[in-house]
C-alpha cells in the first residue's frame, strides 16, 4: 500500500486560507489504512481547519467528504457535484490521487493535505514500514525476499557495507540492516552459499531513472 502522512496543520492552512469554499476530500484506500487520508480523517481535519478559521476570523466554508479511490475515474462520480460547487479541493489522497484529480478538474485549484511517504506494509497496528521503491526490476528472488533497494540506506546490491552495527543500519540504531536480514534469511533457507554470487550492475532504466513509466495491458485498452 501507499503510505502517507498528514502535513502540519499550519502548512495546510496556508494553502487553503485564501479560498471561500473548500472541499476536504478523503481517499478511502491506502491512506485510510494508515489513518491519515480517509473520510474519517477528512472530517477531523475539517474541524481543525474550521477552528483555525474562527481564530483568524477568516471567511471560509469547509465541506468534508470522501471517495473510495482518487486514482480511478469511476469513483469520482459521487463527488463530481461537490467538486463543481467548490472553489478548491484539499485532497487527502496520495500524490497519485491529487494529480489524477488535477487532470480531471482542470480549472479547480487542488492542494495535497498529505506528504506521500512510501510503499509499505502494516508492520503492526499503527506502524508502517517501507518495503519497495518500485524499481521496475525486482531482485527479491536472489535476496531472500528482502528488498535491498528500498531497505538498505545505500540500496547496495552486494551488501552489507562496513558501517553495519550489531545488525542495525549505520544511519539509525532503530533500523534493521537490510543485508543482515538478507544474510539471516538466506541461511534459514539453506542458501547461504548464494551470498557469494555477485549481483551485476543493475539496470536502473526501469526505475525512475528511466523517466516517467507507464504500462499497457493489451486486451484491456479501449
Amino acid at each position, binding site marked *: 500500500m501507499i503510505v502517507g502522512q498528514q502535513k502540519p496543520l499550519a502548512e495546510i492552512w496556508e494553502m487553503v486560507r485564501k479560498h471561500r469554499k473548500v472541499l476536504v476530500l478523503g481517499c478511502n484506500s491506502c491512506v485510510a489504512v494508515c489513518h491519515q487520508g480517509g473520510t474519517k480523517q477528512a472530517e477531523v481535519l475539517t474541524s481543525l481547519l474550521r477552528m483555525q478559521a474562527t481564530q483568524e476570523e477568516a471567511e471560509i466554508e469547509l465541506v468534508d467528504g470522501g471517495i473510495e479511490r482518487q486514482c480511478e475515474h469511476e469513483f469520482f462520480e459521487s463527488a463530481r457535484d461537490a467538486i463543481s460547487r467548490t472553489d478548491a479541493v484539499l485532497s487527502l489522497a496520495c500524490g497519485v490521487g491529487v494529480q489524477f484529480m488535477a487532470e480531471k478538474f482542470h480549472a479547480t485549484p487542488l492542494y495535497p493535505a498529505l506528504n506521500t511517504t512510501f510503499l509499505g506494509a502494516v508492520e503492526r497496528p499503527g506502524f508502517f514500514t517501507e518495503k519497495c521503491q518500485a524499481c521496475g526490476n525486482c531482485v527479491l528472488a536472489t535476496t531472500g525476499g528482502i528488498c535491498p533497494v528500498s531497505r538498505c540506506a545505500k540500496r*547496495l546490491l*552486494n551488501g552489507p*557495507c*562496513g*558501517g*553495519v552495527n550489531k545488525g542495525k543500519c*549505520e544511519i539509525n540504531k532503530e533500523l534493521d540492516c537490510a543485508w543482515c536480514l538478507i*544474510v539471516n534469511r538466506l541461511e534459514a533457507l539453506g542458501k547461504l552459499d548464494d551470498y*557469494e554470487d555477485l549481483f551485476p550492475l543493475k539496470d536502473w532504466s526501469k526505475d525512475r531513472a528511466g523517466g516517467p513509466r507507464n504500462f499497457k495491458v493489451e486486451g484491456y485498452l479501449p
Partner: protein
Amino acid sequence: MSVKTESKLERILAAGHLAITSECGPPRGSDPEVIIKKGELLKDHVDAVNVTDNQTSVTRLSSLAACIHLKLTGVDPVLQMVTRDRNRIALQSDILGAASFDINNILCLSGDHQIFGDCKEGQNVFDLDSMQLLQTVRHMRDDGKFLNGDDINRPPRMFAGAAANPFAEPYKIRVPRLAKKIAAGAEFIQTQCIYNLDRFEEWMNGVCDRGLHEKVYILAGITPMKSLGMARYMKKNVPGMDVPDQIIDRLAGVPKEKQAEEGITICLETIERLKEVKGVSGFHIMAIEWEEKVPEIVERAGLFPRPKVSDE
C-alpha cells in the same frame, strides 16, 4: 600474483615486501599546500598514500585533484572513490581522468551515508556499489572497454583495491564477503582499524583456509590512539569499529600526558604481532589528524627504509 600495472604499491607487494600505505584527507578549502605538506611528510616512509573521497560525507577538495598534487610531489597515490556521489558515467569519467595523470591505484568504496556529513539534505546516487565499482575498474582495465562495450583508447591501468571489515556482524559472511570482493576484482585489501587482534586472527585463519591470501594482498589497518577520549569515542560512535575494553583500560591506566605514547606503543605491538600472521602483506597506517607520527611508527616498527623497486 603477476604485476599488471605501473603501481609502485603493486610492485612492492609482488616482490614479497611488507607494504606500507597511509592516508591523507584533503582540506575543506582549495589550498593545495596542506596536501603537498602531507605528501612530503609521508613520501619516504610509505609506499602509497590513500586520498579519502569526501570522507564521512563532509565536502572537501576532490580526491582526484588531491591525488594529482600528491603524484607531483613524488608520492604513489591511491584514489579512493565512493559510489555515493557519482553515477556510472561520472565514475568511468573520473577513472579515465585519474588514469590520464597515471594515478595507478584505486580503492573502491560505497561511502558513508550522507546523513553523517555537511549535506544531510542532499540526494545520494549509489548507481553502483563497491563490488560493482571493482568490476567496472577491472573491466575498463582488463578488457579495455567502457561498460557499454565500446573500446577505450588507452585504457586505465589501475591496481584495484577494496576495504574489508573483519569485525562487523554478521560474522558468518566476513570471509565469504572477502571472497566476493576478490571475485569482483579486488587485488589488494585495506582493512578496518584493528584493535581486536584475536578476532582479526580468527578472520585471517578463515581467509587462509580458503586460500584467499594467495589471491589478494591484505594490508592490516592500523590507527594509533591519541588519547583515552579518542578510544572511547571510537568504541562508542564509529560504526563497524571493534575496540576491546583491554585497549581502553591500558590507556586509562597511564596519566593523560602519557596516553599518546601508550597509544603508539599499542600500535607498535599490534604491528609486531601482525607481522607474524599468515596472509598479512603489509600495513595501512591511518593516523587520524596525526600524520606526523607515521614516519616514527614506520621506523620504530623496523619497516624503514622502504624497499626500492625498479620503474619499468
